[in-house]
């Protein structure tokens, strides 16, 4: 499904990704862990098409499509979804109008006509109950005045609405209490299917007790420095990340 080969990216003169390779097959869930500042969010943003980051080398292939050649919106239409570490507040744009525009954008791409109002509302109901998103939040402006936990639930709600092929979750667990974590995990688990792949970025092992990964990778200094099964997460929890870092490239400062 997804093949990342030797990906390099920078912001200004700051090289952040330094030759990152990763393959994700259909239905797999890969966890990416690593210290703060190692480049996890950058990887997520580069995959989603944020043009703030300049890709200086490597390739990303999604089911035969050169992802790097597409605009962010086109990538989303091809089935990429990013749940943001810090979801953006957009005053004045209602959550529902936002989702309708997004769904219809995707549908237009597949040659389908806009979704019927009734079908749309049914889908909204179904997906919001999945993450126990309050009806009032659906009607408000996008993320405006939402608590941290509500924002994260809204991300998973959007994921459920858009049914991506590849979902990238960037620290969806951060800032969640244990109940919210359970709700969000339940939503993610309900979305797992043999056709849908996940990249789950997290700083803590905690999330992976609820969302069980097929593989765990450690990102350090812009590269994957170790890969393993789900037991690797436990090992990291115990030992921390220091033992994996190459001392000469230690730039962690975050």
């Amino acid at each position, binding site marked *: 499904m997804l093949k990342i080969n030797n990906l390099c990216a920078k912001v200004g003169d700051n090289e952040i990704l330094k030759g990152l390779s990763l393959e994700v097959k259909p239905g797999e869930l890969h966890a990416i862990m690593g210290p703060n500042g190692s480049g996890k969010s950058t990887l997520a943003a580069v995959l989603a098409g944020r043009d703030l980051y300049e890709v200086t080398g490597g390739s990303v292939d999604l089911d035969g499509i050169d992802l790097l050649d597409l605009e962010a919106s086109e990538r989303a*239409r091809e089935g990429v979804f990013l749940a943001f570490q810090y979801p953006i507040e957009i005053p004045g744009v209602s959550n529902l109008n936002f989702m309708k525009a997004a769904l219809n*954008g995707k549908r237009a791409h597949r040659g389908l006509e806009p979704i019927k109002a009734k079908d749309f509302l049914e889908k909204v109901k179904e997906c919001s109950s999945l993450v126990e998103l309050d009806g009032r939040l659906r009607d408000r402006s996008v993320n405006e005045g939402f608590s941290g936990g509500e924002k994260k639930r809204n991300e998973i709600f959007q994921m459920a609405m*858009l049914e991506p092929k590849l979902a990238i979750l960037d620290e969806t667990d951060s800032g969640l209490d244990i109940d919210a974590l359970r709700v969000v995990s339940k939503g993610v688990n309900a979305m797992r299917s043999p056709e849908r792949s996940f990249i789950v970025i997290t700083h803590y092992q905690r999330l992976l007790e609820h969302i069980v990964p097929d593989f765990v990778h450690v990102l350090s200094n812009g590269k994957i420095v170790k890969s393993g099964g789900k037991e690797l997460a436990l090992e990291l929890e115990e030992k921390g990340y220091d033992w994996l870092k190459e001392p000469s490239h230690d730039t962690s400062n975050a």
Partner: protein
Amino acid sequence: MSVFTDNFSATLPPPTRKSERWKYSPIAKLLNKEISISTEAAQGMNGWPESVLPNPVLNLDAYLVVFKNGVFEPTLSDLPVSDGVDCIPFSKMDQSGSLDFTNGYHQKEWIGELNETYRQDGLSLHVHRNVKVDRPIVIHHLTDGNNVASFPKHLIKVDEGGELNVVVWSSASDRSSGMYNGLLEASIGPNALLSLEKVCNEGGKVFHFSHEHIVQERDSKLKMHTFTIKGDWVRNELEIISRGKGTDSVFNGAYLPLGAEHVDNHTTMDHTSSDGTSSELYRGIMYGNSTGVFNGKVFVRPDAQKTNAFQQNTNIVADRGAAINTKPELEIYADDVKCSHGCTVGQFDLDALFYLKSRGIDEKAAKALLVEAFLADVLSSVSSTELCEEIMRLYTERHGW
């Protein structure tokens, strides 16, 4: 068509950069000093260009008062005829119909002076005590022709407890050039309501000047909106004087100039009496090489205790070549007041744009959503949804969202 031609530059020289109020809109170098003023009506649809509809807001059920090149056009108009509303164009007024209700406007600024000197026609509109006019009155001005000038002046008086909605809409055909100079004097009686929307949607190369002077009596309410949809060079002046206790003034504006267009909004809110509220919100998006000016003055005089005045001007500079000069001026002489103001100039929120795009919304649609959200607060107080939708439709059509 009979035409009167004159050169005004010696008696009424246009302002230069040296005049503080015209510093960022120096008009003297741009303006053709010779003007041609038409003195006859357009003769119905015969004299009307196909590209502009006589009724600018088709879906709005309204009375219609049409002027072409400044002269009232009776065959295209539909004036209100009901008890308690006197709505008479000056050109149709007999000698006895004197204009005994000016609101005391005497300011001799360039726009007003020019208008006084060359005035051809205009509307006298009087709403009697406790009369609520059943439909909006749309005053539609068309400029059509080469180097033509029009100088309408409208007088509006709403007596105690009355209610009125007026839309002053100006159009110009694409082949037009010249000047539009419109003056409007309004007085709003105690407990009365005036909603006034001023829309400029002019093609061609017309210099658009307008000045509204509005006086509010106690407990009256004003809702004023100034929309610049299209206009090569536009200067809007709005002056509101709160002359009685407990007035409420809402005045908003929007401008989204393209290309090399210039839009200037000068507003003055003068609180001279106590317990008044004013809320001003102007928002603009500057595209291309356009230039803009916002200047908002708020005076709170010594007797205007317990005034609550809010002012905000928010701008997005969408393209590198565009620029806006914005300046709030607050002068407060009373101590027990609440005043807040803010002027900002920024760019489109790139984080928000990326967030929308990451969900599959393309750049154009994403920007349209952000623009709609940006304008929502300006539009929300417009008195009819039909007008609101038409304005948004015109912006959308013009910008290709």
